C-alpha cells in the first residue's frame, strides 16, 4: 500500500503509524517530497512510531509484509511485481510528481492496493490515484481540516474517487478493518453458487432501480470485483448481508454506480497508441477534407474529458500543418452527469504536467493557480453530452470513433451490438480507436485492421445498402423488465436444468412433433425457430440466404401470410387467413394460417409485439368444402364457365404481377423511409447535444448581457455627471467676479462673464462681433497685438494694466485648447489686483520694521551666548572638582569625551590615556554585555538611578559600586554621563549584619526546638508513666475495695491537664509544621490553632503563591504573623482576621488585617514599641532584607504588611 504526503505530512504520518498495528500483513511505502540535497531523517522519525522495520530504499528490494519503505531524496520510486526500485527523475525540479508516478506503478503491479493521500501542498497524487482506483484499489484521503496543508487532500477529493475521508489516525483503523475483512468472492461467475448468482442479480437490480442504469449485461468478472470492493469497504463478508445494507442505504447504490463507472482517464493515456493514431490516421483524414468540410469524431465514455481533449489537441496540431483547415467537431459522451460537468469545465490539476508536454501546455492550456484550463479554441471544438450509447440514438457520419476501455465492461453479445452501432455511426472508411484490451477482430465484414497492436480499425463500406440501426434500446428499460428477459440473463440458465423444467421441455417437444406445424418469428419477420413439421411450408428462393419468413414461405402462402402478419402485429391479436390450397407432392391441401402475436408487458396491456407464432392448420374437412364448391360449379354452364375461367385466370395473373410490383415498390420505399428515419434520429441526437451546449453558452450570454447592462448604467451615470458639470460651469462663470472673455481665432466674441460689461461695452447682441470694434476703459493699447501674439505663439501673456478709474488689473491671455488639444481662440481674464497692489506697499513697510527687530534680537543673542559660555565654564569646573568619579562618553560607541579628576584617581589613569578611547580599549572593569544592556535601557528611559553593580578592578580587587547614568545631548553629541561611588564597604557591612541577624533567628528557633523536645521527650514521658501508675493503683484499690485519703480522680485530672499544657507548649515553641518547607501551609496551620485556642477566625488567602524563602526569613515571618494575630486577639476587639499572600516579581507581600478598632498610627507607634515589641520585630525583619508597614485608622482596623524577598537562586 502506498502513502503520499508532502508539506505537513510528517505529523499525519506519525499519527497514522501510531494508530496502526504492526501485524497487518501489508507492506507500506511512504512517498514524500524531499529536498534533493538534504539527507532525509524520515525513516528514523517513523521508526519511533511503529514496531515494523522502516527502510529507506536505495536499491532494488523485494517487498515484504509488515515492513515500511521510505523514498530517498532526489529519486523517484516504482513498483514492479513485488519489487521496489528507485530511479533518477526525468523532469526538472518543480515538475516532479513522485507520488503520481508511484501510484501508477502500484496500480499496475498490485490492482488491489490501497493509496493514501495525506497533508501536502500542490496536487501531486491526484492523477495517480485514478489509476489505483481504476484497477480496483482503495483510496483514502486525510480529512482536509486536519491536514496542515490541505491542497493535496482537496485535489484528491475533487476527483470524486475517494472512498474514505477521515483524520489520519482513523484512516489507520479503517485500513485495518478493510484488510481484515476480505470477502474472497470468486472472480469468475462460473464459480458462484446459484444462490450467490441470484443475489448478484438482485444487487444489480437494486442499482438499476435506484440509478436507472442496468449493469446486468456488463462483464461479470468486473462487476464481481466492484461488488467485492464495496462489500470490503462497508465491512460485509456475505453477498446477502451486503444486499440488505444496499436496500436500506440509498446513497450506497449511487456509490456502487460510480464505482462501476470509474471514469478514469489521462491525457495521452497510452502515448504510443495516440502517437500511432496521429501518424497513421489523422493526416489521412485531413487530406480527404476540403475547407468547408468538418472532421467529425466521437469519444464514447469520455469521463472527465481528457480523452476528448487529447483527440482535439492532435487534430489542432495536424490542422496547424495544413494549408486548408477543415472545421473540427468532436462529440464526447458519457453516462455520468457529474463527469460531463467536470469535462465541460475543462479545469485540470497541475499534475497533468506529467502527461502533457510543456509545448502543449503552453499552446492549449492557461494556468490558473494550481490548475490548468483548456483554451477556448479547444473547448469550443468539443461538444459534451450525457448520452448512453446502449440506449440513445447514435451520432452519425463520424470520421473517428474513440471508445477506449468501455467495452471491457460489457458482455460479449452486447459488445457485438455496440460494434454494430459503431459501424453505423462511422462513415464508410471512418476509423475506430479502441483500448488496449479490446478488439474488433472477428468482425471482418465490418472492420479492417489498420494497426493491430494499438487497436485501430477502419470501417468497411456498407455492402448493399445502409444497415439498420441495431434495435434500441439494447439494455432493458426499467418499465419493460419481464420474466422473458430475465430468462436470457446468463446467471439464470441453471434454473432450466431442474427436473420440472426438463418435463416442460419434453412437453414442448411433443407439441412440436404432434401439434400443427408452426414457426416463431420476430418483429422483423425473421425466423427464430421452426417446429419439426413446418419445413414443408418453406421454400428457399434463389438469391442470398435470408431469414425473412415471407420470402421463405411457399409462394402460394406469401400473400395471405403477409396480410395475417400485418394484422397480427398491428392489432396485437391473433389473425387467421382464408383457406389456401397448397400442392404437396401433387396433392392439394387446404391450409389456414394462424398468426398469434406474443405480447410484451402483458400486465400493462400495452407495449409492442416482439414475436409471433405462425401456425399452419391443415383442415381435413376443407376437402369436403371443396367438394361443395365443386358441386356448385357443376351447376354452371360448363362451356360458358370455361371461357369465363380462362378470362378470369388471365386477369388474376395480371393482377398478381401488378401486386408484386407494388409490393416491391412499397418495400423499397419503406427501406428508404427507415434509413431516413434513422438519419433523422441521429441528427436529432446531435441537435439535442448541441442544444445542451447552447444552454450553457446561453447562460454565458446572459451573464455578458448583465455585464453590458451594468456598463450601460455606468455610462448613464457619466452622462448625468457631464450635464451636471456643464451646469456647474455655467454657475461658476456667473458666480466668478473675475471678468472673463472668450474669443475665437478671428478675435470675435464667443462668450463672456457678466462682469465684463464693466470693462468693455459689450452687449448680448455683440456675440460674434470682433472685439476690436468695441471700446474699453483700460490703458492697454497693446491689447490686440498681444491677442494676435498669443494665437501665433501659443504662449500665454500676462500684463498688469491700469484702468481709467485707477483700478489695477492683471490681464491674462491664454490660448483656448479643446480636449483634442486644438487651438480655437483665446481666453482672457481680468483679475482685479488693486488690493494686491496696496498690500504690496504695506508689505514693503513691514519688511523695514522687521529688519530693525532682527538687529535688536541679534544683540540679545550675543548676550545669551556669553552667559552660556560662562555656565559651561562653571559646569566644567564643577565637573572636575566633584569628588564623585564621573565620565561623559559617546552613547553609540562608548568613546570617552571627558572625565573628572575623581574618575582618573579611581582608575589610576591620566587624562591623555582616557579621552577618545573606549572603556573596552582601556580594559576598564565593566562587562561589555552589561554596558550594552545599560545603554539600551538609558536610551529608552533617559536615566537610571542608583544601580548597584559588582565589578572587578584591573588589580583584581572586587568592588561594589552604586552608579547613576543619564542620557543627554552634549554639544551636539548623543552622550552618556556616568557617575558612581564605591560602596564596597557598605555592602560588606550590610552582609555581615544580615548574617548575624540570620544566625540569631536560627539560634533562637533552635533553642525553642530544644526546649520543646525536652518538654516532650522527658517531662511528658515521666508524667505519662506517673499517670499510668496511678491508673494501675486506682484499679487495684477499686478491686480490693480500698479507699484513699487523697482524691485520686482529681490527681488523674491534674496529670491530664499537665500533659495538655506541655503538649500545647511544645507545639507553640516549635510547631511541627515549621519543619516543612512552606510558609503558607504553616500560616494556615496557625489559623487553625488561633481558632482552637483563642476563638479567632483567621481566613488565609494564598492562592497562586508558591514562593520559597530563606529559612531564617521564613521563621521570622511566621513568628511575626503569629505575633500580629496575638495582637488582634488582645487589642482589636474583633474575632476575625485575614492573612493575604500576594506574589510580586521577587518578593511576597504578607498582609495581616482586621476590622477592629484600630488606632492613630503616629501617636501610638511609640507606645507600641514599648508594649508589643513589634517594632523590634520590624528592625529584625529589616536586617533580613524584609520590610514591615503599619497602617491603621481608628474604627476602621489595622493592616500590617510584611514585604519578604523570595529565596534568590
Amino acid at each position, binding site marked *: 500500500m502506498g502513502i503520499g504526503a508532502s508539506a505537513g505530512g510528517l505529523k499525519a504520518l506519525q499519527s497514522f503509524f501510531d494508530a496502526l498495528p504492526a501485524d497487518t500483513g501489508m507492506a507500506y511505502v511512504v512517498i514524500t517530497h524531499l529536498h534533493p540535497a538534504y539527507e532525509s531523517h524520515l525513516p528514523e522519525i517513523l521508526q519511533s512510531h511503529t514496531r515494523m522495520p522502516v527502510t529507506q530504499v536505495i536499491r532494488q528490494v523485494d517487498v515484504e509484509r509488515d515492513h515500511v519503505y521510505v523514498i530517498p531524496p532526489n529519486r523517484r520510486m516504482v513498483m514492479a511485481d513485488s519489487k521496489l526500485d528507485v530511479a533518477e527523475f526525468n523532469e526538472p525540479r518543480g515538475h516532479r510528481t513522485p507520488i503520481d508516478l508511484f501510484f501508477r506503478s502500484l496500480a499496475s503491479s498490485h490492482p488491489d492496493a490501497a493509496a493514501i493521500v495525506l497533508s501536502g501542498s500542490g496536487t501531486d497524487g491526484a492523477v495517480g490515484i485514478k489509476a489505483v482506483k481504476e484497477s480496483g484499489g482503495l483510496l483514502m484521503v486525510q480529512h482536509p481540516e486536519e491536514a496542515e496543508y490541505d491542497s493535496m487532500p482537496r485535489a484528491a477529493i475533487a476527483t470524486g474517487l475517494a472512498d474514505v475521508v477521515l483524520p489520519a489516525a482513523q484512516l489507520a483503523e479503517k485500513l485495518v478493518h478493510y484488510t481484515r475483512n476480505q470477502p474472497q468472492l470468486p472472480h469468475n461467475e462460473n464459480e458462484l453458487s446459484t444462490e450467490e448468482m441470484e443475489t448478484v442479480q438482485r444487487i444489480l437490480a437494486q442499482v438499476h432501480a435506484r440509478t436507472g442504469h442496468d449493469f446486468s449485461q456488463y462483464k461479470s468478472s468486473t462487476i464481481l470485483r466492484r461488488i467485492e470492493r464495496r462489500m470490503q469497504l462497508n465491512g460485509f463478508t456475505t453477498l446477502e448481508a451486503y444486499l440488505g445494507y444496499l436496500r436500506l442505504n440509498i446513497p450506497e447504490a449511487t456509490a456502487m454506480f460510480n464505482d462501476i463507472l470509474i471514469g478514469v482517464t489521462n491525457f495521452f493515456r497510452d502515448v504510443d497508441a495516440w502517437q500511432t493514431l496521429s501518424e497513421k490516421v489523422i493526416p489521412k483524414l485531413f487530406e480527404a477534407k476540403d475547407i468547408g468540410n468538418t472532421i467529425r469524431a466521437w469519444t464514447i465514455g469520455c469521463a472527465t474529458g481528457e480523452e476528448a481533449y487529447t483527440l482535439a489537441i492532435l487534430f489542432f496540431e495536424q490542422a496547424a500543418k495544413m494549408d486548408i483547415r477543415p472545421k473540427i467537431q468532436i462529440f464526447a459522451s458519457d453516462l455520468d452527469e457529474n463527469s460531463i460537468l467536470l469535462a465541460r469545465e475543462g479545469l485540470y490539476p497541475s499534475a497533468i504536467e506529467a502527461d502533457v508536454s510543456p509545448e502543449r501546455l503552453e499552446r492549449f492550456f492557461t494556468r490558473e493557480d494550481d490548475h490548468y484550463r483548456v483554451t477556448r479554441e479547444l473547448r469550443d471544438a468539443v461538444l459534451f453530452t450525457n448520452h448512453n450509447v446502449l440506449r440513445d440514438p447514435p451520432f452519425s457520419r463520424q470520421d473517428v470513433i474513440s471508445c477506449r476501455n468501455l467495452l471491457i465492461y460489457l458482455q460479449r453479445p452486447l459488445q457485438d451490438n455496440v460494434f454494430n452501432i459503431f459501424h453505423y455511426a462511422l462513415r464508410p472508411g471512418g476509423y475506430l480507436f479502441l483500448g488496449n484490451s479490446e478488439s474488433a477482430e472477428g468482425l471482418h465484414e465490418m472492420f479492417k485492421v489498420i494497426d493491430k497492436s494499438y487497436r485501430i480499425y477502419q470501417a468497411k463500406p456498407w455492402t448493399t445498402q445502409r444497415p439498420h440501426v441495431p434495435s434500441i434500446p439494447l439494455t432493458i428499460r426499467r418499465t419493460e423488465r419481464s420474466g422473458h428477459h430475465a430468462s436470457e440473463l446468463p446467471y439464470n440458465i441453471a434454473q432450466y436444468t431442474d427436473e420440472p423444467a426438463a418435463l416442460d421441455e419434453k412437453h414442448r417437444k411433443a407439441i412440436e412433433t404432434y401439434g400443427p406445424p408452426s414457426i416463431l418469428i420476430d418483429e422483423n419477420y425473421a425466423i427464430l425457430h421452426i417446429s419439426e413439421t413446418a419445413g414443408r411450408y418453406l421454400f428457399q428462393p434463389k438469391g442470398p440466404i435470408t431469414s425473412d419468413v415471407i420470402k421463405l414461405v411457399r409462394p402460394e402462402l406469401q400473400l395471405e401470410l403477409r396480410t395475417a402478419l400485418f394484422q397480427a402485429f398491428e392489432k396485437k391479436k391473433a389473425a387467421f387467413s382464408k383457406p389456401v390450397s397448397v400442392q404437396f407432392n401433387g396433392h392439394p391441401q387446404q391450409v389456414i394460417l394462424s398468426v398469434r402475436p406474443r405480447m410484451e408487458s402483458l400486465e400493462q396491456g400495452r407495449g409492442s409485439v416482439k414475436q409471433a407464432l405462425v401456425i399452419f392448420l391443415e383442415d381435413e374437412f376443407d376437402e369436403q368444402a371443396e367438394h361443395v364448391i365443386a358441386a356448385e360449379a357443376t351447376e354452371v354452364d360448363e362451356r360458358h364457365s370455361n371461357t369465363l375461367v380462362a378470362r378470369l385466370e388471365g386477369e388474376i395473373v395480371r393482377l398478381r404481377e401488378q401486386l408484386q410490383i407494388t409490393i416491391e415498390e412499397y418495400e423499397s420505399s419503406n427501406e428508404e423511409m427507415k434509413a431516413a428515419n434513422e438519419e433523422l434520429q441521429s441528427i436529432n441526437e446531435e441537435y439535442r447535444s448541441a442544444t445542451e451546449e447552447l444552454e450553457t453558452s446561453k447562460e454565458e450570454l446572459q451573464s455578458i448581457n448583465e455585464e453590458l447592462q451594468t456598463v450601460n448604467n455606468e455610462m448613464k451615470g457619466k452622462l448625468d455627471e457631464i450635464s451636471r458639470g456643464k451646469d456647474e460651469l455655467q454657475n461658476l462663470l456667473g458666480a466668478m467676479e473675475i471678468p472673463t472673455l472668450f474669443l475665437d481665432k478671428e478675435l470675435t466674441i464667443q462668450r463672456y462673464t457678466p462682469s465684463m460689461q464693466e470693462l468693455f461695452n459689450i452687449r448680448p447682441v455683440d456675440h460674434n462681433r470682433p472685439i476690436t470694434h468695441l471700446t474699453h476703459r483700460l490703458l492697454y493699447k497693446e491689447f490686440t497685438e498681444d491677442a494676435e501674439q498669443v494665437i501665433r505663439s501659443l504662449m500665454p501673456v500676462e500684463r498688469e494694466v491700469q484702468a481709467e478709474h485707477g483700478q489695477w488689473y492683471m490681464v491674462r491671455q491664454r490660448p483656448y485648447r479643446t480636449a483634442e488639444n486644438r487651438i480655437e481662440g483665446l481666453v482672457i481674464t481680468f483679475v482685479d489686483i488693486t488690493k494686491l497692489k496696496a498690500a504690496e506697499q504695506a508689505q514693503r513697510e513691514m519688511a523695514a520694521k522687521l529688519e530693525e527687530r532682527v538687529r535688536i534680537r541679534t544683540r540679545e543673542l550675543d548676550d545669551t551666548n556669553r552667559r552660556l559660555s560662562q555656565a559651561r565654564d562653571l559646569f566644567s569646573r564643577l565637573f572636575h572638582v566633584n569628588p564623585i568619579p564621573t565620565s561623559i562618553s559617546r552613547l553609540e560607541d562608548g568613546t570617552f569625551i571627558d572625565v573628572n579628576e575623581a574618575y582618573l584617581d579611581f582608575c589610576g589613569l591620566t587624562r591623555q590615556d582616557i579621552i577618545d578611547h573606549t572603556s573596552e580599549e582601556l580594559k576598564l572593569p565593566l562587562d561589555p554585555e552589561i554596558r550594552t544592556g545599560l545603554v539600551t535601557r538609558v536610551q529608552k528611559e533617559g536615566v537610571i538611578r542608583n544601580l548597584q553593580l559588582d565589578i572587578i578592578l584591573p588589580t583584581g580587587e572586587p568592588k561594589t559600586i552604586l552608579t547613576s547614568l543619564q542620557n543627554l545631548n552634549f554639544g551636539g553629541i548623543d552622550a552618556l554621563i556616568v557617575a558612581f561611588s564605591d560602596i564596597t564597604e557598605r555592602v560588606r557591612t550590610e552582609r555581615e549584619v544580615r548574617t548575624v541577624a540570620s544566625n540569631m533567628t536560627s539560634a533562637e528557633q533552635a533553642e525553642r526546638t530544644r526546649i520543646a523536645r525536652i518538654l*516532650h*521527650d522527658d517531662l*511528658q*514521658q*515521666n*508524667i*505519662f*508513666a*506517673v*499517670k*499510668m*501508675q496511678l*491508673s*494501675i493503683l486506682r*484499679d*487495684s484499690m477499686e478491686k480490693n475495695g480500698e479507699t484513699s485519703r487523697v482524691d485520686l480522680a482529681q490527681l488523674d485530672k491534674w*496529670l*491530664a491537664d499537665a*500533659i495538655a499544657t506541655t*503538649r500545647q507548649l511544645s507545639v507553640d515553641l516549635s510547631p*511541627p509544621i515549621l519543619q516543612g518547607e512552606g510558609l503558607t501551609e504553616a500560616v494556615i496551620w496557625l489559623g487553625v490553632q488561633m481558632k482552637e485556642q483563642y476563638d479567632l477566625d483567621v481566613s488565609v488567602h494564598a492562592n497562586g503563591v508558591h514562593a520559597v524563602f530563606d529559612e531564617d526569613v521564613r521563621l521570622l515571618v511566621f513568628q511575626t504573623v503569629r505575633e500580629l494575630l496575638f495582637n488582634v486577639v488582645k487589642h482589636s476587639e474583633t474575632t476575625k482576621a485575614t492573612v493575604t499572600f500576594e506574589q510580586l516579581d521577587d518578593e511576597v507581600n504578607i498582609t495581616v488585617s482586621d476590622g477592629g478598632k484600630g488606632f492613630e498610627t503616629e501617636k501610638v507607634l511609640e507606645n507600641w514599641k514599648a508594649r508589643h515589641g513589634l517594632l523590634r520585630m520590624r528592625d529584625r525583619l529589616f536586617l533580613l532584607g524584609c520590610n514591615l508597614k503599619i497602617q491603621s485608622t481608628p474604627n476602621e482596623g489595622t493592616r500590617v504588611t510584611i514585604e519578604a524577598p523570595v529565596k534568590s537562586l
Partner: protein
Amino acid sequence: MLSVLLVEDHQKFASALIRLLGRTNDFNVTRHAATAELALEHLLNQKFDLALVDVFLPVMSGIGLVSLIHKEYPLLPCLMVSGHMLGHYVTKSLAAGARGYVLKDDSAGILEGIQHIMKGKIYVSKELRYNDQ
C-alpha cells in the same frame, strides 16, 4: 497468653506499661526493646503475637520499624503507642502498616486497642478519632 514485643525508649513509661499489661492474664510482655534495631534482633529469634511500638525512637523511627515488620512479618499486628496527638502521625503509621494508634495517657484505650487489634480490627484512641481522620 499472648507474647508481646514492646519497643519503647523511655524506661519509666515502659515499666509502667509492662505492669499495666501484667495485671491481666491475657498478655505477657515477653521482650522489651529500647530501640528499633534491638527489636529486629528479637524478631529474628522469637515469634510474637503482638508488637507495641513508640512512634519516636532514637535512630530508626517507630513508623520505619512498623513498615519493615509489615514487609517481613506480615502476620504480626503492630499497635503504635505515642504521646503525639497530631493526625499526621496517625495517618503515616496506619499507612506504614500499623493496625492501631493509642495515646500514652489513655490507659483504658491501650487495653481496649490490644483487644480490638487481636480480633483483626483497626483501633485509634478516642481523642484522635474526630480529628481530620
